[in-house]
């Protein structure tokens, strides 16, 4: 019995079976007991995370499913982040009397798709994993279907996501045509002595499709609208786990499939990273809505993660993993604060509405300040360590100019994080907050505590784990 849990695909099997069981159970007990389904969903995801961290490594289905150290690291982080997303989302929906048992099931299925993505050893499993995850996210974006903005966000996400899937598939078909195989192992053998024009052409389309999914500029157009329109807990989920999954998939496609074409893709990724820095930093300056602001912030941050992959070294991959994990904690906590802030029944999602927050809710103001400083990259908060890893790896690989661009971008971006802090601490309050049913903010507080000082303890074991995971491809 216990051997089953040791199987390489055990976490996926656990989640798939649990989702299939919870769906009819939820249909029978109804939305009134959605709390039960959410609770069970969280338990299942935590169990899957434990299994993913301890089961046997291996390659299944003729190389289509690869469970190596790299995938295991990402899976643990993804499952835990999804469990937190269920907790946050359930509380948020319950406060609006809009609980639905489908919500935890959809998050679980999205987590299943993400774990397929990080384990993809083949272009078909890459595509199906991406679709599995995105389709669940489109539904989540439009989950509050009676709100015009949420429906708009869902529709935009869906249409642009379908476009990007089309681009990705076009690239996949070209790669298949020119290398004669869909498996990363065979593709890597075919491009070992330098990729031909055709394969590189396909690779560029593949990169464009993946860049859409991680919302890297210049494929970022959907991000601000979706972040603004979709319900806040769903955005908190979008910004964390799916980004990590897509980045890990990106790294695997490049390093396991196209190592021979490293000179080519490394250039493309550097350009994408540089454009993301500019768009993220400059675009954020004029935003008035916090969720839009965080969308631009995520574009800039994805640039740093891509820089880690562009470095093409083991150190770069380690930097990418550490960066994404620390960023996930920060961004989840940031959205948790926004969810916990309400004024007269309205979510306080504009920067203006935060005026004088220190007088009204000093605890939340402090938490938000710590998180802003952390995302900004101020030492000794976790955001600083995340960027430190990336810059160290980029400079180690000789990518000086892009690293400098990233540094400049984070200085420019500092303006908008500091503005949030200034508005909260030094401006006069607009109007006293009425009674509201805002949620608890212990997730936010935990996130703030993590960004300093817990991060120092966490890095002590995160560093070797990420290095071990990044060694899976046998890079330099």
């Amino acid at each position, binding site marked *: 019995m216990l051997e089953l849990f040791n199987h390489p695909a055990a976490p996926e099997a656990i989640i798939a079976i649990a989702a299939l069981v919870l769906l009819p159970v939820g249909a029978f007990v109804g939305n009134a007991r959605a709390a039960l389904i959410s609770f069970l969903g969280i338990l299942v995801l935590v169990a899957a995370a434990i299994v993913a961290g301890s089961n046997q490594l291996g390659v299944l289905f003729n190389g289509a499913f690869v469970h190596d150290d790299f995938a295991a690291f990402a899976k643990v982080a993804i499952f835990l982040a999804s469990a937190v997303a269920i907790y946050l989302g359930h509380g948020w929906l319950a406060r609006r009397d809009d609980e639905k048992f489908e919500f935890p099931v959809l998050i679980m299925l999205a987590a299943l798709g993400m774990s397929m993505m990080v384990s993809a050893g083949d272009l078909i*499993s890459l595509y199906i994993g991406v679709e599995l995850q995105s389709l669940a996210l*489109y539904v989540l974006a439009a989950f509050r279907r009676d709100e015009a903005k949420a429906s708009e966000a869902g529709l935009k996400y869906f249409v642009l996501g379908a476009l990007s899937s089309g681009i990705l598939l076009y690239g996949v078909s070209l790669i298949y045509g020119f*290398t004669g195989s869909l498996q990363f192992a065979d593709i890597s053998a075919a491009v070992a002595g330098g990729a031909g024009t055709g394969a590189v052409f396909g690779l560029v389309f593949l990169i464009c499709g993946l860049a859409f999914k991680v919302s890297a500029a210049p494929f970022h157009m959907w991000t601000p609208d979706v972040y603004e329109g979709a319900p806040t807990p769903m955005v908190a989920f979008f910004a964390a786990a799916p980004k990590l999954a897509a980045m890990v998939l990106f790294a695997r496609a490049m390093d396991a499939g196209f190592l021979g074409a490293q000179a080519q893709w490394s250039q493309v990724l550097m350009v994408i990273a540089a454009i993301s820095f500019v768009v993220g930093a400059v675009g954020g300056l004029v935003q008035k809505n916090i969720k839009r602001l965080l969308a631009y912030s995520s574009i800039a941050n994805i640039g740093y993660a891509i820089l880690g992959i562009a470095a093409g070294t083991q150190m770069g991959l380690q930097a990418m993993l550490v960066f994404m994990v620390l960023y996930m904690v920060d961004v989840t906590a940031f959205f948790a604060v926004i969810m916990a802030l309400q004024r007269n029944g309205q979510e306080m999602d504009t920067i203006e509405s935060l005026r004088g927050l220190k007088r009204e809710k000093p605890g939340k103001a402090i938490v938000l300040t710590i998180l802003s400083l952390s995302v900004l990259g101020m030492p000794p908060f976790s955001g600083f360590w995340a960027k430190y890893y990336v810059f160290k790896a980029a400079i180690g690989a000789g990518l000086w100019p892009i690293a400098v661009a990233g540094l400049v971008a984070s200085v420019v971006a500092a303006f908008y994080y500091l503005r949030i802090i200034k508005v909260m601490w030094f401006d006069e309050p607009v109007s006293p907050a009425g009674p509201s049913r805002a949620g608890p903010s212990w997730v936010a507080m935990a996130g703030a505590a993590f960004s300093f000082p817990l991060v120092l303890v966490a890095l002590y074991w995160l560093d070797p784990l990420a290095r071990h995971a990044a060694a899976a491809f046998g890079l330099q």
Partner: protein
Amino acid sequence: MLQAIAFYLMAAVTLGSGLFVISARNPVHSVLWLILSFFSAAGLFVLMGAEFLAMLLVVVYVGAVAVLFLFVVMMLDVDFVRLREGYAQYLPIGGVVALLLMIEMVLVSFAVADRGAAAGKQIVAAAADASNAESIGRVLYTDYVYFFQAAGIVLLIAMIGAIVLTLRHKPHVKRQDIHTQVGRKRSNAMAVVTPKTGEGIADQ
């Protein structure tokens, strides 16, 4: 020779009808052109010896997808003239982008064709003893069972999504409840009254 003629004919019809799909004024005509292009693409599959895919294309795309499109187009009251308002405005920039992309693709395909495309790469040989439906059947539930199951879950999500986003329980809709209908007694549905002559029946 005959094969070449058939290929060029069907390829031309596919391309031509594809062009009409996007340029037809009437959306119903667009869908009909789409059906034609599916048919000629199915013909191209037959030429390549992939009868099963050809049949699949006709059954699934023509039989289900295109007819569904036709229903949607006819049922929804979409003002297509208004949808096309920006067409001329975006045409120049769209045209430039499309032209650039086309030039790139043509250049790449020439560069590739010079070197013999995918020549030399191993291509899976068709099984000699099986029709192509049978050879797909042999691998679909064995080698590719992972993809098959995962695709099933994708469809499950699509179904959950459709239900979550469209199902509404309206409070004031009267539905037939057979249990209450059958459980109704004479005593709570009928009453014998004896009204006096010249007076109406008061509300009971």
